[in-house]
C-alpha cells in the first residue's frame, strides 16, 4: 500500500499515544446531529409509495419504492395450475428458512423449502462477528433488551424484542444440540465479546466465521431432514384465495426455465434483505440474492412494511483492495482492540458506539477530507488492526480472526502488521414486513421471519442480534404455522390483479419488474417459458442439482 505511506506513517506515529488514550466521547445530542448530517438514512433520498398498504403514509428509498410500484414478472395471461401440493412452503434458504424447516421436522407435515440460489447461499453464511445471548455475569434478558432498545432508537417493537431476548439462552442450546461449535474459554464457559452498543460482553462467536458455522450446520441438518428442497427456484409471486388468505407461490425453476405453482396451507417468507439494491450507490456486504424480493411479494398481499426507510450501513466495510470493496470486516475486531483512525492518525470517535453513529462519523471524516484516498478513487479511514496483537499478544489476530487474515493475505496485506482501509457498506435492512411475536403477518396463511421482517431492531440493529433473530423467529413462525394451519384453499392471482389495477393509475412508473431477484450490476436475466418443461433442458456448465450418477462403492457388500 505504497499509495498510503504518508498517512500510514502518521498512523504509526500516534499509535503509542492512542494505546493509552480514552476513546473520544459523544453526547446523545451530538450523536443525533451527526446522524442527521451524515447518515445515508437521513439525507432524504426517499419518497412516498403511491400504491399498496403504505401508500402515501411513509417513505422508502427510491430504489425500493420503484420496486414496490413495479409490475410482476408473470405474464398477464398466466393462470396458476397446481404442480406441487404441500402443507408448509418456506421461501428462502438462509438461516431463518432453515430454522423454520428444522422446527417442523417432528410435525408430520409435508414441508417444501424453495430458495433462489442454493440452500445456504445467504446473508447468514456471511455473518462474521457472532450471536448475542445474555449468558455472562451481570447480564440478563432485560439488559439485552435495554441495549437493543437504545441502539434501535426506541423504535423497536418491544413485544418482539422481549421475545428475542428471553429466548437467547434456549437458542444457543438448540444450536449446540445440532452440533454448532462456538468458542469457549478455558473454564468451559462461552467466550463472550463486546459488540457496538452492548453494555456487557454478550456476543458468542465461532472465530470470525460464526454465520458460516451456523449456516453449514443448519444446512446439513435440513438436507438430512424430511424437508423437500427446491434449490434454484425463485419465488416470483405469492398466490391467494381471493378472500385474503395466502395459498401458495409461483416459483421460477432457474435451471429448467419453467414456472412451478405450489399450493400450500401456510407460506413462511424468509427471503432476507435487500443490500444488493445498492442504495445511493453504496457497496454492499450482502450475497447475490439480497434484492428485497419478500418485501415486494408480501406488499402485494396487503402486508404493511415497517421502517422501510431504515438501513444499516456497517461501519467497517472494506475500501481497499478493489476486489474486496464492500466486504465486511467484523465488528469484533474493534472490540478486541482495533481502533478507527483517520488519515491524520487521529481517533475521532469511540469504536464501540452504535453502528449508525460510527458509520456517520466515518462518512463525515471522508467528506471533510480527513480520509485516505485509494488509487481506485475511493476513500476511507483506517482500522488499526495491528493493535490487536500489540494489546493481546502476538498471534491473537490470526487465531481469532482467520477469515480476515485469509481474505487479505491474497493481496499481500497482513492485517497483523498493516491497518485495513474501511468505509461503510450497505449491510442490513432494518425494516421490513410487520409481524407479531409468532411471525404472523397481516395476511392469513402468511408468516415471515428474519431480515425480511421489520420492527424488532427499530432503526438500527446491534451486532449479533440478526443470527439470534433468524434462529428464534424462524422456529417460532414455523411452530405458529403448524398450530394454526389453515385449510387448503384455491390458488388465484387476485392480489396481483388488484395491484396491477393500481399500477395503471401511476403514469411515471419506472419500467422495471419485481421482485428484482438479482442485482442490476450482475446483468442476469429472468426468463421463463410458460410451457411446462417435460424434460430437463440441455445443461451447460451452469447446470445445478446433484447428478444422479454415483460410481459403485468398492467397500459396500
Amino acid at each position: 500500500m505504497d499509495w498510503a505511506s504518508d498517512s500510514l506513517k502518521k498512523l504509526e506515529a500516534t499509535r503509542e499515544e492512542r494505546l493509552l488514550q480514552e476513546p473520544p466521547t459523544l453526547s446523545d445530542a451530538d450523536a443525533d446531529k451527526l446522524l442527521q448530517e451524515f447518515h445515508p438514512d437521513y439525507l432524504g433520498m426517499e419518497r412516498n409509495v403511491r400504491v399498496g398498504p403504505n401508500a402515501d403514509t411513509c417513505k422508502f428509498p427510491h430504489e425500493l419504492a420503484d420496486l414496490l410500484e413495479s409490475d410482476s414478472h408473470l405474464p398477464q395471461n398466466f393462470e396458476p395450475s397446481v404442480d406441487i401440493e404441500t402443507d408448509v412452503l418456506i421461501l428462502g434458504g438462509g438461516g431463518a428458512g432453515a430454522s423454520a424447516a428444522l422446527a417442523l421436522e417432528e410435525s408430520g407435515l409435508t414441508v417444501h423449502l424453495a430458495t433462489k440460489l442454493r440452500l445456504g447461499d445467504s446473508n447468514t453464511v456471511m455473518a462474521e462477528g457472532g450471536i448475542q445471548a445474555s449468558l455472562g455475569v451481570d447480564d440478563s434478558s432485560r439488559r439485552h433488551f435495554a441495549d437493543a432498545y437504545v441502539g434501535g432508537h426506541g423504535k423497536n417493537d418491544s413485544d418482539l424484542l422481549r421475545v428475542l431476548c428471553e429466548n437467547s439462552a434456549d437458542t444457543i442450546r438448540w444450536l449446540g444440540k445440532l452440533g454448532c461449535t462456538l468458542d469457549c474459554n478455558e473454564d468451559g464457559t462461552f467466550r463472550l465479546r463486546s459488540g457496538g452498543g452492548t453494555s456487557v460482553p454478550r456476543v458468542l462467536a465461532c472465530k470470525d466465521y460464526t454465520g458460516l458455522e451456523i449456516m453449514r450446520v443448519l444446512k446439513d441438518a435440513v438436507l438430512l431432514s424430511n424437508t423437500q428442497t427446491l434449490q434454484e427456484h425463485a419465488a416470483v409471486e405469492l398466490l391467494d384465495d381471493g378472500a385474503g388468505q395466502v395459498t401458495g407461490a409461483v416459483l421460477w425453476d432457474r435451471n429448467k426455465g419453467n414456472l412451478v405453482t405450489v399450493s400450500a396451507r401456510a407460506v413462511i417468507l424468509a427471503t432476507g434483505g435487500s443490500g444488493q439494491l445498492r442504495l445511493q450507490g453504496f457497496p454492499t456486504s450482502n450475497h447475490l440474492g439480497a434484492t428485497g424480493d419478500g418485501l415486494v411479494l408480501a406488499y402485494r398481499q396487503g402486508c404493511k412494511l415497517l421502517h422501510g426507510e431504515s438501513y444499516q450501513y456497517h461501519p467497517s466495510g472494506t475500501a481497499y483492495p478493489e476486489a474486496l470493496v464492500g466486504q465486511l470486516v467484523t465488528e469484533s475486531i474493534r472490540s478486541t482492540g482495533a481502533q478507527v483512525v483517520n488519515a491524520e492518525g487521529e481517533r475521532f470517535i469511540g469504536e464501540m458506539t452504535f453502528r449508525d453513529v460510527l458509520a456517520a462519523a466515518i462518512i463525515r471524516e471522508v467528506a471533510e477530507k480527513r480520509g485516505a484516498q485509494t488509487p481506485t478513487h475511493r476513500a476511507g479511514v483506517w482500522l488499526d488492526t495491528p493493535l490487536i496483537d500489540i494489546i493481546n499478544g502476538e498471534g491473537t489476530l490470526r487465531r481469532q480472526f482467520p477469515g480476515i487474515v485469509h481474505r487479505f493475505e491474497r493481496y499481500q496485506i497482513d492485517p497483523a502488521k498493516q491497518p485495513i482501509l474501511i468505509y461503510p457498506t450497505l449491510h442490513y435492512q432494518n425494516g421490513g414486513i410487520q409481524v407479531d411475536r409468532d411471525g404472523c403477518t397481516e395476511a392469513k396463511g402468511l408468516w415471515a421471519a428474519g431480515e425480511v421482517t421489520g420492527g424488532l431492531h427499530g432503526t438500527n440493529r446491534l451486532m449479533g442480534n440478526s443470527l439470534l433473530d433468524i434462529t428464534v423467529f424462524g422456529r417460532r413462525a414455523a411452530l405458529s404455522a403448524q398450530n394454526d394451519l389453515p385449510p387448503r384453499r384455491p390458488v388465484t392471482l387476485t392480489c396481483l390483479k388488484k395491484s396491477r389495477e393500481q399500477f395503471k393509475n401511476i403514469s411515471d412508473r419506472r419500467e422495471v419488474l419485481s421482485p428484482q431477484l438479482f442485482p442490476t450490476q450482475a446483468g442476469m436475466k429472468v426468463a421463463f417459458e410458460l410451457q411446462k418443461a417435460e424434460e430437463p433442458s440441455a445443461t451447460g456448465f451452469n447446470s445445478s442439482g446433484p447428478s444422479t450418477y454415483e460410481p459403485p462403492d468398492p467397500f459396500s457388500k
Partner: protein
Amino acid sequence: MKTVDIKVAGKPVQAREGETVIHALWAAGMAESVKTGCVGGVCGACTITVRFPDGRPGRTDLACLCTAEEGMEVFPCPVDPVPSVAPQASPNAGKLRTAYPTLDRCTKCGSCTSACPMSIPVMDSVLRMQSDQLSVVAEDFTTCIHCGLCRFVCEDRVQPHNMGMWVRRSIGASLGPLKEAVVAVEPEQVEREWKYLLEGNPTERINHARQFRNSGGIEE
C-alpha cells in the same frame, strides 16, 4: 482504468485490472457462466479452475476471490453436492469409518490440500481422522466452506469436507450443555425489571433503557 484480457470457458472477457472474475463476468453480461452465491468467499458456489500463461501451475479457486490477470484462462468447475451422513454421539474413527467407508482409501497424494481455497491442511486432517485425532480434525475444518473441491479432486472417492462436517457436528452435539454464568434472579424482580422497561411513554421508556444499561438493574 487498465484492462486485462482473460478467457472464461473459452470465451474472451475483458476485465478491469484488480477486479474479481465474478465482477468481470457481470460486466461482460456473462454472470450465468459461473454459479454464484455470496460473492464473499464463504458459500463455495463459484468454484473454478485457473490456468496461467506464464507457466505457473494452474489451480482451483473461487471466482469471487480470484482477481483477473492478463492471459488467465478460467474454467467453471461446479461441484455437485452429495448426501451427507447424520452425526453420531461420542464420535471416534471407527464410527467415522462406518459413516464414510472410503476414509482409508486415501493414497496421500495431497490433491485435496492443494485444491482447498481456504488453505485447510485437508490431507493431513484425513490422516488424523484415520488415527482418531478427531478434536484436531474439528479444528482443522473450522474454516471449511463446503465448496466440495477436496472431494471433487479425490481420485479415491474420499469425502474430506463431508467427514469434516460429520466430525464437527458429532463432537459439537456431544459436548452437552456448557457452563453458563447466569445468576438466578427472583421472578418478582424479573417482572419488576420488565415493567420498568416496558411501561411509560416513549421518552420514559428510552430513558429507563439508557439507565438500565449502566448497571444492569433499576437504579433507585
